[in-house]
């Protein structure tokens, strides 16, 4: 998708390609507080294996990414979310 003519040898930086849609869109309200108990929301920012999705993928602001990451870690401690996904069947 969206091949650029690569005459230059520079490595293409995927996160700067505006044509590529990769963002998991979730709009936070201004005064919204990220709650570690809101598992359905936090799951949106995790991979199937249970890893926290990177900022590049989520497209969150630094503040929100930080809040989400902390919330996921808190939820993990209370066994609400997995550290790793269980073995695949």
């Amino acid at each position, binding site marked *: 998708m969206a091949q650029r003519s690569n005459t230059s040898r520079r490595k293409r930086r995927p996160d700067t390609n505006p044509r590529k849609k990769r963002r998991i869109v979730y709009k936070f309200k201004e005064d919204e507080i990220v709650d*570690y*108990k809101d598992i359905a929301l936090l799951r949106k920012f995790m991979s199937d294996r249970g890893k926290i999705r990177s900022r590049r993928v989520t497209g969150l602001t630094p503040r929100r990414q930080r809040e989400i990451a902390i919330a996921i870690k*808190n939820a*993990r*401690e*209370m*066994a*609400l*979310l*997995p*550290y*790793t996904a*269980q073995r695949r069947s």
Partner: protein
Amino acid sequence: MRSYELMVIHRYDMAEPDVRAAVEEVEKAITDRDGVVKDTDFWGKRRFAYDIEHMTEGYYSVIIFDGDVELQNVLDRSLALLDSVVRHKIIRKDA
């Protein structure tokens, strides 16, 4: 006074009335030390996302309360010593 949220997980092999009593005991411990219990939410039995000490489920309850730092310290310490409590977490709601 600060606003806190406490989550406690009790052992799965307890009877539900016992767990409710245990939660009430925690509430009492809060009020005894000049804390104010704002809200208590008993979730009931819930499956863990992963095994904890060979257990796969536990009783979750959430208590929102106001109290001093001292109260939070006491709660944290005494809950850690209780065998009926698998895990607990105290989060500051403000700040």
